């Protein structure tokens, strides 16, 4: 248990204009679960890509099992016993589990042989998976199991997991952790990347904290307070969002039996979604991605019109209204996908400000655009939300994810909506920007707007919501007051862990 498996010594990798990793050194013991902590852009991904052979470091050395290790490509890393589960799955929706697993292997056996192997390994580690099912029909948690089993079949010495819990329900997380602990007990080392401190404290033996590409601390997560780790990650003292008690306002938005068929294959149908949101209230909608979040926001924004009576804004049925009519009435939305949906990547910030602001900010006159007014609006957003950019003439694509998200959320908030719906408002955003966005949402609610936050980040939802409900397979659970809700309660609301069994720890 105490031998060293992998040692990194002075790894440095620079990209044009930015140093992703600078002199990074640490080591992983055999059978250790080692956490790699850091904000977005801290260099975690570059570092693990170096270990997995996707990136060639500029300088520094790695030693695996006492032998110098310099993988030229992922195949070399896999041969040396390094496997990786990526945050974004690389699976083919239209193919079966077994076919997908075969496709990812270097020396694939026959699909029939693999099916038996999949059954054996999945049973052994408590990850039930039918090798004949089509991937497109699987839940996100099940898809992750495909990726994990694909790795386990190669009998890895080191398993790298990149943000594995972002798509899982709390119960699924528990089961994943049992699997990982069992693997570690058998001598497999795990490099676990996350920014969720609670998980790391529960799972990991050691943690290395990266900030701006450098190792700023190593600590024992079981002995270190989460707040302390967070501040190591961010480098500043964190401010928690401030909430003031709000009186109950009038009902702003009412969804009455909102149902809609799935707009495309592998989409989710909305089934009888019924809820009301009052002025001054923040409603949190939790749930694993792919359970109807995109469809719900499309039905609210007007991109997917439904029957008129299904959506009521301030008592007026608007379910069949067009996108801009809803904006004019005060219902604004910020979808999850920033580039290409909420913003046009190759257009300037001025043009992107115009994209949703044209009606409420009066940026056109008889069809002609008022460019100076649009530029002024873009500048207002940039200033009020501290968007880091040289100016409104820059393209949306040139902004970092967090900055663009601040711009997108700011654009809607600055239009004084009476109802604002946001999907994954802080996805891929660093901690300080996330705090700013959450604060802005709370302030908006304080000023009398109704706010709906759809998110997979339960910590975020608990931080901002007054009431919480869960979206599972297109159905919305009844809302419950967020205060006093335990993680187990939330897990049950999210539908719990379907058809999961606990790892057979004794073998």
């Amino acid at each position, binding site marked *: 248990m105490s031998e060293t498996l992998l040692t990194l010594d002075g790894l440095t990798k620079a990209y*044009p204009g930015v140093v992703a990793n600078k002199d990074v050194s640490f080591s992983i013991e055999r059978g250790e679960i080692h956490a790699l902590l850091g904000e977005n852009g801290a260099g975690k991904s570059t570092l693990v890509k170096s270990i997995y052979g*996707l*990136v*060639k470091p500029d300088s520094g050395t790695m030693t695996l099992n006492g032998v110098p290790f310099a993988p030229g490509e992922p195949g070399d890393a896999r041969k040396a016993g390094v496997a990786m589960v990526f945050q974004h799955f690389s699976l083919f929706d239209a193919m079966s589990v077994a076919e997908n697993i075969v496709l990812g292997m270097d020396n694939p056996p026959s699909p029939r042989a693999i099916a038996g192997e999949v059954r054996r390994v999945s049973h052994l580690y408590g990850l039930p998976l039918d090798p004949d099912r089509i991937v497109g029909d699987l839940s996100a948690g099940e898809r992750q199991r495909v990726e994990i089993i694909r790795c386990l079949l190669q009998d890895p010495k080191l398993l790298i997991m990149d943000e594995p819990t972002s798509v899982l329900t709390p119960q699924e997380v528990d089961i994943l952790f049992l699997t990982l602990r069992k693997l570690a007990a058998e001598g497999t080392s795990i490099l676990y990347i996350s920014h969720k401190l609670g998980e790391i404290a529960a799972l990991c033996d050691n943690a290395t904290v990266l900030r701006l590409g450098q190792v700023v601390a190593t600590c024992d997560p079981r002995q270190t307070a989460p707040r302390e780790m967070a501040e190591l990650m961010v480098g500043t003292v964190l401010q928690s969002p401030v909430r003031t008690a709000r009186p109950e306002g009038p009902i702003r938005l009412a969804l009455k039996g909102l149902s809609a068929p799935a707009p495309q294959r592998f989409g989710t149908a909305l089934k009888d979604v019924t809820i009301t949101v009052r002025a001054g209230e923040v409603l949190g909608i939790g749930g694993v991605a792919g359970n109807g979040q995109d469809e719900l926001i499309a039905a609210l*924004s*007007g*991109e997917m019109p439904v029957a008129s009576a299904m959506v009521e804004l301030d008592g007026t049925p608007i379910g069949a209204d*067009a*996108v*801009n009519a809803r*904006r004019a009435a005060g219902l604004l*939305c910020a*979808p999850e*996908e920033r580039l*290409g*949906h*909420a*913003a*046009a*990547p*190759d*257009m300037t910030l001025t*043009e992107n400000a*115009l*994209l*949703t602001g*044209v009606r409420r900010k009066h940026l*056109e006159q008889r*069809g*002609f*655009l008022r*460019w100076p007014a649009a530029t002024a609006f873009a500048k207002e957003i940039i200033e009020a939300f501290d968007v880091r950019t040289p100016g409104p003439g*820059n*393209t949306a*694509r*040139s902004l970092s994810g967090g900055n663009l998200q601040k711009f997108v959320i700011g654009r809607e908030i600055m239009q004084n909506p009476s109802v604002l719906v946001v999907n994954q408002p802080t996805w891929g955003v660093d901690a300080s920007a996330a705090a700013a966005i959450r604060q802005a949402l709370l302030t908006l609610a304080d000023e009398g707007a109704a706010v709906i936050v759809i998110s997979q980040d339960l910590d975020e939802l608990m931080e901002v919501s007054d009431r919480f409900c869960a979206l599972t397979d297109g159905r919305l659970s009844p809302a419950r007051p967020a205060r006093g809700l335990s993680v187990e309660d939330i897990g049950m609301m999210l539908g719990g862990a379907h058809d999961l069994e606990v790892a057979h720890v004794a073998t």
Partner: protein
Amino acid sequence: MIVLDKRPQPSRMWSYAAPVLAVVLTMVVGGILFAALGKNPVEVIRTIFLDPLFSKNAWFYRPQLLIKGAPLVLIAVGLSFGFRAGIWNIGAEGQYIMGALCGAAVGLAFYPMESWLIFPLMIMAGAIGGALWGLIPGLLKVRFGTNEILVSLMLVYVAESLLAAMALGPLKNPEGMGFPGSRNLSQYPSAANLELISGSGMHWGVVAALIAVIFAYVLLARHMFGFQVRLAGQAPRAARFAGVNPARMILICMGLSGALAGLAGMFEVSGPAGQVTIDFNVGYGFTAIIVAFLGRLHPVGILLAGAVMALTYIGGGIAQSNLGLPAAAISLLQGMLLFFLLAVDVLTNYRVRFSNRVAA
């Protein structure tokens, strides 16, 4: 090895320099081609690109530039809206024919009455004829999800058959001794699209092309519709989020490009061509696609690209008759121009780096 790095934003310098570089590359490679054909490359290139403007016969060629360039610009401006929005109308040639047929039919219906009303009516008929022909693929796409590229292209052949039928049938000149072809509209004062200034080549089609360029420029730069067109092409999901109705966008773009192509056809049949004949169409509708892209779908760029393309038509004609160059060589040169433009376009969005290391 060569590595392409995506630029954070498109290079302003290269978006202007790329078309110029494409023209230069076309001249160089075209020159090599002509040399391989046994011609003096310098002389051929000079004949094609300079003689129409500066030779001692240029007084004859310069008006031809306007006559050839006007329909190309008019059609290309219409196409550029659809192309920007990701709607691919490849059948401008058919819409051009239908505009000519409808315009000519209205004019001929009034023959031999003289009235100042006839020409404006013909203009309207031409625009409507082209627009309706363009709306067929548009409606089919909106209603049944058919591919507008295939449908608009196939409708070109339908229009060509209709043209032949009209030239031999209903529109045939009753006093034409049985020859196919309609009465000559340029000899019918109320319906003739004559030169506005004698010897200049300037006819109403040229005026219409210039007006279209100005309108397109204002629409794209200052109007909500132009913004929506650009948005729909660059980020279709964002366009829907911004409230753009995709079906409406398809119909407007197909109708608009059809109308402008129809106008071009109507000005051609009542002016330079003069009559409806079986071989009335000479490929302006297809060449305009090249013009639209050569001008980077920008109205002013299209104006310049139309001029360059008209130059290669006329210069090519001179080279054909004076130097005995095959007609296919000229078509090849025009195709090469688009080919190089698309290739050089990479420089606008990417930075080229030479590296002896394997890409990481």
